[in-house]
């Protein structure tokens, strides 16, 4: 029935036309009767018309039947509002522009916020997934778990219903050959049940299975979504292609692409099964170290998982109670690990943009109030002619709605542009960056924001103006000739709005100023070394083709010498890991002279970096005591280490 009424409304002009044709036909049919009775054609027609009755009344009744009352009123209001706005184009343009900017920025930021923080990760029940690793007193570094201990955890855990592991790496990139080119890939070795524990589906192809994770299995590889986009441009034919590590072993077959957003540790490009590349991992002496990611059992808590993990960590160092005491464990929910770093920044951004939107709405609301002040007389006449209070309010709201819709449309276009700009400038490490896209979600967000904004800036002026005093505007006179909107209370109201806007603007400015100060501060922070003029060179060298360290030494020395010989280079040094690339140095144990490793005291864990003779010169680090490395500290000479201040203070 409703559908028919809608259709009738839409086709109303046609219906009216047809009805008038119908009535004409009917009257024509009545006319011959008169002629038969001897009247002239004109008389007969007049008689027929009289007989037929009031055509106008009939047409009006039919018209009402084909109409939907509310719709017609609304359309009329919209037309009126548009006409009113066209009379003041500057006001309309200004209001639409302000709204467009505010709504556009808000939509852009909330699109990013939604894509990065709000959307669920492509895993099953993300809040039950945790990542566990060991910690050590006195260092921020992670203490990974030996692989055999992981097996113990996996098989015997009561708090984790499934436990997978990934190799603790220094995050170094590995060159891989594909076709004729070399790709710089950050690989991650994972256990076969890794993807199953996460409960995720592949984006393309398949994910790793336990059957891939046995020594001697064909080496396969699953690309991360980001790497697939970056290296292969999203080419769907990538499944089945092969990558090879520099000169070593059989080629790796790409079997699938993982869902977007699962790159942890940050920047992981590919996941490979652990055992084929580390066949002896299960034995204690192999030294394969892992971090654990697992799913909490139905009634287990993260704290319980941590305690169980800690017990395993301690059991791994049972012979060393002193060493044991320094070790702890930390548990991290997976969403926190992936997104936790950016949350504060995005929340701050969202808050700032929300404030800006409120400022914009207040601005437009104020403009509306000022505009309405000049229409007091018009409103009074309308009220006097019988327009109800609700009717007038509705009229104002319709104006606000028209402005809102126009502003929203402009805002959506601006939002798309803003998101593109954001993507161009966003930090590369932003999680799920590759999945931020203006889309249907953005349009919905924009619509929602528009509605809220319209209510904000439209309602108050509408209610205010409809209440204007009836008599005084018509009386004219100096004080209130322009209607209720220019009375003293109205002026106070508008001043309050302006004050409110200024206050908000000050808040936003203060916040922005603080952020700029912090950034500046960070840039001038004393890092302890001179970072200016430093460059990191990643080498794609077939190190693994050398069977002893000595063979690698010559080429390395030659490379360093050639680099140092370049004009403008003061010093160069090989490093295991560049600074500020994470807390992933090599794990080491500090033993005082005269004690043996099993001596039960004064043993402590420290993070170790390997370096060449020019390490300190390259970084500009001052030596506080003793000496720096020299070329003499090489094969055959006693092993030397240089410690930083913290361990030196401890001992």
């Amino acid at each position, binding site marked *: 029935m409703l559908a028919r009424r809608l259709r009738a409304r839409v086709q109303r002009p046609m219906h009216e036309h047809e009805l008038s044709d*119908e009535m004409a*036909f*009917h009257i024509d049919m009545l006319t011959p009767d008169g002629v038969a009775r001897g009247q002239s054609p004109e008389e007969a027609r007049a008689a027929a018309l009289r007989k037929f009755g009031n055509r106008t009344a009939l047409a009006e009744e039919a018209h009402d039947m084909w109409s939907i009352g509310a719709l017609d009123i609304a359309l009329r209001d919209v037309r009126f509002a548009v006409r009113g706005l066209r009379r003041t184009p500057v006001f309309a343009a200004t209001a639409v522009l302000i709204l467009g900017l505010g709504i556009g920025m808000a939509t852009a930021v909330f699109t990013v916020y939604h894509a990065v923080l709000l959307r669920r990760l492509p895993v099953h029940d993300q809040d039950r997934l945790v990542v566990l690793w060991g910690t050590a007193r006195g260092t921020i570094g992670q203490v990974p778990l030996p692989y055999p201990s992981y097996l113990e955890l996996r098989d015997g855990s009561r708090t984790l219903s499934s436990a997978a592991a990934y190799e603790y790496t220094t995050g170094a990139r590995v060159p891989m050959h594909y076709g004729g080119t070399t790709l710089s890939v950050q690989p991650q070795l994972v256990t076969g049940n890794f993807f199953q524990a996460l409960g995720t589906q592949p984006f393309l192809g398949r994910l790793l299975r336990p059957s891939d994770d046995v020594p001697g299995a064909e080496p396969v590889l699953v690309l991360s979504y980001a790497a697939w986009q970056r290296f292969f441009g999203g080419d769907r034919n990538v499944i089945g292609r092969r990558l090879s590590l520099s000169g070593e072993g059989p080629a790796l077959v790409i079997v699938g692409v993982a869902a977007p957003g699962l790159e942890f540790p940050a920047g992981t490009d590919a996941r490979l099964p652990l055992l084929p590349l580390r066949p002896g991992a299960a034995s204690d002496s192999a030294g394969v170290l892992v971090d654990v990611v697992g799913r909490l059992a139905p009634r287990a808590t993260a704290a319980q998982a941590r305690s169980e993990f800690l017990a395993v960590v301690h059991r791994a160092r049972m012979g060393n109670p002193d060493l044991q005491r320094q070790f702890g464990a930390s548990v991290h929910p997976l969403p926190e690990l992936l997104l936790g770093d950016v949350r504060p920044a995005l929340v701050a951004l969202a808050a700032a943009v929300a404030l800006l939107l409120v400022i914009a709405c207040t601005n437009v609301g104020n403009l509306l109030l000022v505009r309405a002040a000049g229409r007091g007389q018009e409103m009074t006449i309308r009220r006097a002619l019988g327009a109800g209070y609700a009717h007038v309010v509705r009229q104002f709201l319709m104006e606000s709605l028209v402005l809102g819709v126009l502003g929203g449309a402009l805002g959506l276009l601006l939002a798309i542009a803003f998101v593109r700009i954001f993507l161009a400038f966003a930090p590369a490490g932003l999680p799920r960056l590759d999945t931020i896209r203006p889309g249907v979600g953005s349009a919905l967000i924009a619509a929602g924001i528009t509605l809220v904004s319209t209510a904000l800036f439209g309602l108050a002026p509408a209610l205010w103006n409809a209440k204007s005093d009836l008599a005084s505007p018509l009386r004219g006179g100096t004080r209130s000739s322009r209607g209720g909107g220019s009375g003293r209370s109205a002026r106070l109201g508008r001043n309050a709005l302006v004050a409110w806007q200024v206050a908000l603007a000050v808040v936003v400015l203060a916040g922005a100023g603080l952020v700029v100060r912090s950034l500046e501060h960070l840039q001038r922070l004393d890092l302890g070394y001179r970072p200016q003029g430093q460059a990191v060179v990643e080498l794609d060298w077939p190190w693994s083709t050398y069977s002893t360290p000595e063979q690698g030494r010559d080429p390395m020395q030659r490379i360093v010498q050639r680099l140092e010989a370049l004009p403008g280079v003061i010093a160069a040094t090989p490093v295991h890991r560049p600074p500020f690339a994470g807390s992933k140095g090599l794990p080491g144990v500090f033993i005082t002279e005269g004690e043996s490793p099993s001596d039960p005291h004064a043993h402590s864990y420290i993070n170790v970096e390997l370096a060449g003779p020019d390490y300190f010169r390259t970084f500009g680090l001052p030596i506080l005591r003793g000496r720096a490395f020299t070329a003499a500290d090489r094969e055959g000479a006693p092993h030397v280490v240089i410690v930083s201040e913290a361990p030196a203070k401890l001992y």
Partner: protein
Amino acid sequence: MPDSNRSDQLLPGTLEMLVLKTLSLGPLHGYGIAQNIQLLSGEALRVEEGSLYPALQRMTLKGWVRSQWKLTPTKRRARYYTLTAAGRKQLGLEASAFERLVAAIGRVMQADVR
């Protein structure tokens, strides 16, 4: 305004039923429906055009009739109305309700004693 003293007035509410019944005998245009009712009732009932066309529009909106422009036997363009299945059903409902009403009135009028 219809004169309520005229003996050829339709009972209120029966117009639609009469139109539906007329159309159940075959499609007709508006003029034809009015003529038909007049004829079949032996000139006792006369349809006001001012009520007929709004009634036809109402019945179209409710889905009881549908219409189509066709040529009359005299080659003039007219709008013919046809009964729909829903209209047929409605006719049945209204007819039985009317009969019940008439029977009830009759029972009252034929009472001899109170």
